[in-house]
């Protein structure tokens, strides 16, 4: 199990904990993450310029192809945009020619299709719930988790091929394997609001607040995220949140680390302990 590791731009400065956690979890599970010098996935510039967005993504495929590796990323927006770029390249001949031309100027060949996976897919496919259950030393029994899926991995389903876009199960499969109880909640597949952060903070806040309230109403202790942007959104300081305690957002890799005994629990556990060891 060897993958080209695509952390995305935000982890290094904005969410270094996610990077540490992903690496430690993968090392423990025998997944080798090869660091390659990737460029931006192209997601942030997609509002402005389609060519820059797709070219930046495709350049990453050329880098991964040169190393002969599939790409794994812990960020759902990176994942979504990389998959989107593949779909655009296959359907838009004009754009594909333009991108090929830009790649050629860098001396890179247009790569064949490179496999792009989110870390959840890799855990589900390469490790599997059974092995995760075997490896669990401190099951998260009693912890009620609301799985927050993240839009860009789910939809459009025909492009991302992440899971069933209307009824996905992979997140719950992974977390129940380590003993957590996952809750049913209406806004499970809704947006966290991060894409509007800094663009329309009012709506961004409203979307986040609504999700949090819904997760709390469903009885969740924590909200599990598997995306850098989603986690940044829920962790963002917001005056409103302080007066309305709602479930904290926890990176799913930190929950797995706690269950596998690799790190202390990232949140208060139902049995009253705050530490896994």
């Amino acid at each position, binding site marked *: 199990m060897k993958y080209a590791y695509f952390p995305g*731009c*935000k982890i*290094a*400065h*904005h969410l270094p904990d996610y990077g540490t956690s992903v690496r430690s979890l993968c090392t423990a599970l025998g997944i080798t993450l090869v660091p390659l*010098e*990737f*460029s*931006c996935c*192209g997601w*942030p*510039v*997609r*509002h*402005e*310029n*389609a*060519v*820059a967005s797709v*070219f*930046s993504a495709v*350049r990453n495929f050329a880098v991964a192809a040169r190393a002969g590796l599939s790409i794994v990323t812990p960020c759902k927006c990176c994942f979504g945009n990389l998959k989107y770029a593949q779909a655009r390249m296959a359907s838009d001949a*004009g*754009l594909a020619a333009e991108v090929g031309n*830009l790649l050629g*100027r*860098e*001396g890179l060949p247009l790569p064949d299709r490179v496999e792009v996976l989110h870390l959840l897919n890799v855990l589900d496919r390469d490790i599997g719930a059974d092995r995760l259950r075997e490896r669990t030393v401190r099951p998260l029994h009693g912890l009620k988790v609301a799985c927050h899926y993240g*839009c*860009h991995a*789910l*939809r*459009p*389903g025909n492009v991302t091929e992440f899971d069933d*876009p*209307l009824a996905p199960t992979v997140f719950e499969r992974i977390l129940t394997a380590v003993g957590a109880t996952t809750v049913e909640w209406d806004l499970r*597949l*809704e*947006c966290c*609001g991060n*894409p*509007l952060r*800094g*663009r*329309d903070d*009012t*709506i*961004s806040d*409203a*979307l986040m607040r*609504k999700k949090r309230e819904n997760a709390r109403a469903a009885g969740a202790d924590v909200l599990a995220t598997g995306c850098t942007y989603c986690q940044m959104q829920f962790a963002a300081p917001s005056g409103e949140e302080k007066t309305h305690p709602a479930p904290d957002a926890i990176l799913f890799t930190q929950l797995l680390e706690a269950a596998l005994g690799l790190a202390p629990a990232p949140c208060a556990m139902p049995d009253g302990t705050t530490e896994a060891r």
Partner: protein
Amino acid sequence: MTVFRLLLVSAVCLCLAGIIRRYARRLSGSALPRQDRSRGRTPWQITHILLHLPVTLITDVLLLRRTLRTSPYRWVMHALTLSGFTGLLLFHALDDVVSRPFIAGYESTLDPWQWLRNLLGGLVVAGCLMALVRRLRTRGLRPATRLQDWLFMGMVAGIVLSGFALEATKIISPNVFNRMTDTYFVPESDADIPALQAFWSARNGVRFSPPAGTDAELIARGAELHADNCSYCHADTSSAFLSRALATAISPAADALNAAQTDAFFWFLHVGLALAGLALLPYGKFLHPVATPLNLVLRNRRHDAATIPDTATAARLGFEACTRCGECSLHCSVAPHFAAMGNPNILPSEKLVSLRKHAAGALDTSAINALAEGSRICTECMRCTDICPSGINLQDLWLSSKQALRQQALDGPNTTIRQCTATQWAEVLRTQGASRFEQVRGNGLADRAESFWGCVQCTTCTSVCPVVAVSEAPAKDLDLTPQQIMNLLRMGLKDQTLAARMVWSCTTCYKCQEHCPQNIQVADILFELRQIATERLRERDLTACPLPGPSAPARAPMDNALPHPAPKGSSGDPA
């Protein structure tokens, strides 16, 4: 020599004045808004830095640890140039100050000094050659190479090469020989001078006209005279191995060169270039031999975005410490965006140049817009900060400058669009007509009837939209709903949709597209409408609505140069 003194003093004065001007210049607060955030802790932080000073000086300043970490090729290149040039500066240029007082029996034409000078000069030339090859051969470096880069490289190489040329033309010059014998040699017989000439010609490469004798006896006599009179101050010119090789190479043309007094020309060139370099020290990357070590010491071997001490002075030091090596731009995460969009401000090294000009108030409107675009496109991945061989805290600079641009409502089309109503923008954008982007790339989803003609106006997209769901009055708050946008497109009224709040406040969750029973790419179309509007604004350099906005004060069209407060929520917030 008085001419030399005069020039030297002028160059030193120009240099000092330039440095004072560069650091004393007040930065416009609108480019880098920052207050000292750690005033109370600064003394302790400075003590901490001073404690680590010896280690930092050795590893980061002398051994160029950061350069090695980023690129071993650049390390070799820079180490060659730095060691060679520093050696020449201290022991050759400043020999009256350093070598003579501190080294007993120092004479520039004695070994090992004569040999060392050639060695050090050779190191610099090798370093400059490596730099030239790097600039020419590294593909991503071309857009990050400016006149000042060539000028600096040319200046360093020029000083050393003119030095070699000076030494070589002196070696072959009978004039120089005569000047020395006239001053220092008292011949005992008429045969002494021809003998000494024969020896110097045979042994040390002086080219007399007519040629000196080659008789072995004459040369042997010359050798004796040389040993008694010259050898105290003159090692064999062969120890000046590079200059002597050059002298041999040019000796066929010796008569012409000597007649033209080429050595005098090269003396003026060598001294002139060195003094010009000194006078240019305060400008651009010429300052880096001073500014970069200062910044390296202050950064205290950190690679992250922490600013310690967090003061405006510390930020300022980093601001001026760029050597323009271009490594940041070679490794930049958004360098592909530059390749696609062609705005050099996307590359960190070029953005820094613009930011410095902007801070000095020297950018025009369209250059500020280009800087704003470059700043906006940066993803804050911190790679440039991690690898910068000069240790500049670029991340902190970008975060500050982005904040400044945001405060001036220069953070992109998303802000610009919200400064007028959708109807006003529709009028402006309709009058402008399709951008080059639409004409060339054109025929995208929003312009192609097939993409939305299946729409049956079932309103599914609107009912699943989370943005519509959190709006109390979507018609007022969002201008249009997704299904209304599809309808306008169907009617060929694309311009009416370009500035709708629904388009710009789409959260890109793709629920509309996923749930559409007719498989219409609703979210992809909204993406494209934003791209089209962005291109139209970009084409006209519009960073503010040219019409008076509903809550913004009226201003003249294209009056973008002044900072405006962002009219937040000008088109109505869903409360």
